[in-house]
């Protein structure tokens, strides 16, 4: 997956904690999701409109992992956000 044109939906409220973890709340479904540090890093990147390549680079920089690992992590988490209907394709 290299589609980076995703952006958070307006009814999702995100909050980040001191250890980097976070929580997302979907105000439409009233569901909430606990995010680990990596997932929260990707969510913040989406909020900032970063493209997929930039998200991958950020994961590599923060966690000192190779490109394949970072691509795999980013793709998996973005797919998860999509499947939970937390993001939409950006215009």
């Amino acid at each position, binding site marked *: 997956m290299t589609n980076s044109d995703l952006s958070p939906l307006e*009814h999702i*409220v995100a*909050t*980040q*904690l*001191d*250890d980097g*973890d*976070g*929580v997302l*709340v979907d*105000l439409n479904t*009233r*569901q*909430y999701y*606990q*995010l680990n540090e990596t997932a929260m890093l990707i969510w913040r990147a989406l909020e900032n409109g970063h493209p997929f390549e930039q998200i991958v680079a950020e994961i590599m920089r923060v966690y000192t992992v190779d490109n394949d690992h970072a691509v795999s992590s980013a793709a998996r988490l973005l797919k998860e956000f999509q499947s939970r209907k937390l993001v939409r394709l950006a215009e």
Partner: protein
Amino acid sequence: MLCFGGVDEPLLNLAHDFLRGYYFTPTQLDAGAPPAHLIQLHKTTPPALPVSDAGFEIEDGHCFTSGDQIVLEVNGSTIVVGPPEFNRTDVWLSQSTPGRHPLALNNVILYAVQAALRRAGLYQFHAGCVLSDNNRRAILLVGDSGCGKSTLTTTLVRHGWNFVSDDNLMLCDSAAGIEAWALRRYFTFDEATLEACDLMTFAESIGGRVPGKMEKFRFYARQAFPDRFVAKCLPGVILFPTLSRELKSRIEPLKQGDALARMIRQCPWATCDGAAAPLHLHALSKLARQTKSYTLFASRDVFEHPASIPGLIAQHVEIL
């Protein structure tokens, strides 16, 4: 300032009786000064309201959303919490006999007041709150009904701690941090817990049964322990008590994310009242960040030997 509008004498008395149980101060509205939030009572039939979802169940009723407003059907009455910029909640009181019962109307007033407070940035929170003389920050005790909040709060108070509440307070996002404010004037206990906490000796502080929860009695802790009441404080620790079958009680640290998730579960309106939810969630998140959180696995030992609780807390909990 909350203001009730459209009340006649019997309703005014009912509202006064209800609010007397809480730390609200009756006041006259200054001419020309608008209230922070108006709760307008109506005795007519409510208008037809377009609702945009199937809603969800709440205690004694149902909640729907309708654009920026939320609609609550409670005990046959209809509550419409307006968009935030209107600072207004309208309540169409039930015309049916069961819906006009004082208990049913109290419940309706409670929902309306809580909604109005949320719009004013004050979030009701089910938690005990205690503060030791040795610490600047307080401990919140958060958990489901029956997890031991009132028992633990009272035990600590009996061992010299100060208290804000046993179960019912408000969170306020202030410049200093998230503050816990006293909300309800009395604790609630069933008879067995009154005995277990050795409170029967404070006979003059035991009030009547709690309306709607007839197994519970009101206990006026401020009357029993007059020097121990604190109107508000900054929490530094959250303890989540849970009953345990283990032989010995223990306390384990909890990650901030887990603590926040547990708090969200305790505060359904943080995800349900769309207009207030972002700030409500922000307040809970800020509370999670300003505190250290722990799970208290409470076994029989702490209930059989309540005197061990302060020591257990001192041993495992880091309080500022």
